[in-house]
């Protein structure tokens, strides 16, 4: 399911009379279990590419295959289901539900998946321990530091055992200690759970963790090298 193939992806945005290039004939293959960094200056198309792969936005042309599914052709409902069951998202600004505790945030996605309550409860505690938040399960997001909130977001993303985690500038709001903790966690999850990671970043510290570094500029891939 989890190998990703993008062919000739193009995406443009209209802003007034101006046409802005988001993606310009992008080809990528990402195999199961890879740990990939997308780097490039701001505006180079990293987010646009992640959104396309994650089924949040459809490209103007080109193909996106995930295993044998053409996700750019999926309807809204099946696309949402695919995100729910196969893809985990980590956003720059955590995006936790403010009125739910760390544990409830993690459980919420499982509930939507239809996981029974007892199992939800056990798994959420387990995963929060795994991301290093033991003892903070009942805190609300506002009572957690940025690094801790991002860990809750990671826990939420991986608790459903996705094939792929897409992280968009996950360290942008973190100090360097928190950032390196988060990256250690990503590496560990990648190794233990064989979850594929694609991380968009322009943070040098993050790139140093990559085992494959893809550089983008003006919506094009300008280099793609193993590290």
């Amino acid at each position, binding site marked *: 399911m989890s190998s990703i193939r993008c062919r000739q992806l193009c995406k443009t945005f209209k802003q007034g009379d101006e046409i802005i290039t988001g993606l310009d004939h992008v080809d990528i293959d990402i195999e199961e279990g890879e740990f990939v960094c997308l780097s490039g200056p701001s505006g180079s198309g990293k987010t646009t590419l992640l959104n396309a792969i994650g089924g949040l936005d459809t490209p103007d042309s080109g193909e996106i295959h995930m295993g044998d599914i053409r996700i750019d052709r999926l309807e809204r409902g099946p696309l949402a289901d695919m*995100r729910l069951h196969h893809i985990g998202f980590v956003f720059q600004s955590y995006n936790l539900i403010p009125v739910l505790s760390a544990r409830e945030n993690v459980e919420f996605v499982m509930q939507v998946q239809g996981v029974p309550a007892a199992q939800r409860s056990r798994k959420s505690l387990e995963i929060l321990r795994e991301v290093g938040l033991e003892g903070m399960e009942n805190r609300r997001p506002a009572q957690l530091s940025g690094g801790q909130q991002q860990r809750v977001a990671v826990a939420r993303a991986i608790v459903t055992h996705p094939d792929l985690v897409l992280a968009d500038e996950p360290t942008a709001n973190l100090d360097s200690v928190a950032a390196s903790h988060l990256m250690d966690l990503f590496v560990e999850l990648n190794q233990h759970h064989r979850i594929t990671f694609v991380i968009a970043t322009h943070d040098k510290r993050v790139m140093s963790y990559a085992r494959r570094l893809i550089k983008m500029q003006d919506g094009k891939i300008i280099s793609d090298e193993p590290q």
Partner: protein
Amino acid sequence: MLVDVGLRLAWRNLWRHWRRTWLTVGAMIFSNGLLIFAMSLQFGSYDMMIDNSLHAYSGHLQLQHPRYLDEPKMRYALDNVAAIAERLRRELSLDSISARAAGFALASSEERSYGLQIVGVDPVHEPLVSTLPGLVKQGRYLKPGAAGEIVIGAVLARNLKISVGDELTFLGSGFDDSFAAGIVTVVGIFESGMADLDRALAQVELGYFQDVFAMQDRGHSLIVRARNIDDVESLQAQVKALLESNQDISLRHWEELQPGLRQAIQADMASNSFMYVVLVVLVAFSVLNTQLMSVLERTREFGTMMALGLQPARLSRLVMLETALMTALGLVLGIAVGLVVNLYLSRVGFSYPGMDEVALKFNLPERIYPAISLASMTLGPAAVAIGSLLAALYPALRLYLLTPIEAMRAV
């Protein structure tokens, strides 16, 4: 983990802006309380209206000749009315059953003449079915066996320019189309507040009436007053059973005897419902406003949830669940408020300025008491709840227009 995460999320979302939520819930509580109060009082006043008008004269049920209702002619009479009345009183163990006979006559005093309905009554049982005997303001009511006595309405007395102790002659036609005439002494003048009765009704003793109008033992109606308006239907069934299939006697329900009463109530209900609808619409708009604001300010959050794989239907359900929780709060607290007000009013009654004058004039009670019933307690709150849920559909369904990326970009 007894509470579902979705339910907990909905509940907590409500209190993110607790002032705004309480304002909306407060509007529901107020409207529910007001609707319960107004409807209970309204139903209470209908009960009072029905009770008063039926108690005044017509009773809850009447036994008549089958054709008498449509054509109240003297010849459509029942045989042996006094005996039937006696039998019914015994079999039903109910004293408030009284026989009447009625005819039209021209009444003349020394100075003037007026047409009137002259009714023969049983002076012992008539006070049990009708308030009229108790409304004699001058003189006294008829005595049993007293031939040659009459009581008349106050307006008629004024028109004829007579008072208690004066004599009156009347002229009509009897059962056998013979000439019926009598000279009677006015012993009492009643004032009922009901124009028809005060202007054109006179009562004499039944036996005397039967003599003068050559009716023998006949009469035109048996008036039945139930102990309570709620007993009327069961009483009706009992009387029907006693009459078996006697084709010569029809049993009339008060709605047949006074069709205008139901119509008046229905007209009043219709005009009141307009106000109720306005109130419900106002609450619905308040819910619409609250939920629309609450959805708009959470656009980003909804975007995140959609990115995680939640479909719009689930988000809509969340918004509806939040509305349902608010509505439930408003419902429970509103009904509680309404109940407290009602219980208080059912002790002390309700009156508005000037009501006592009207009451005095028309022989109504000076206070209205609320009728606390399932309908009066729940009809208004149910309408408010339905209106609120309908209003929330718009903000809830708008979520179907959201796409995760655009929603997440919203501030």
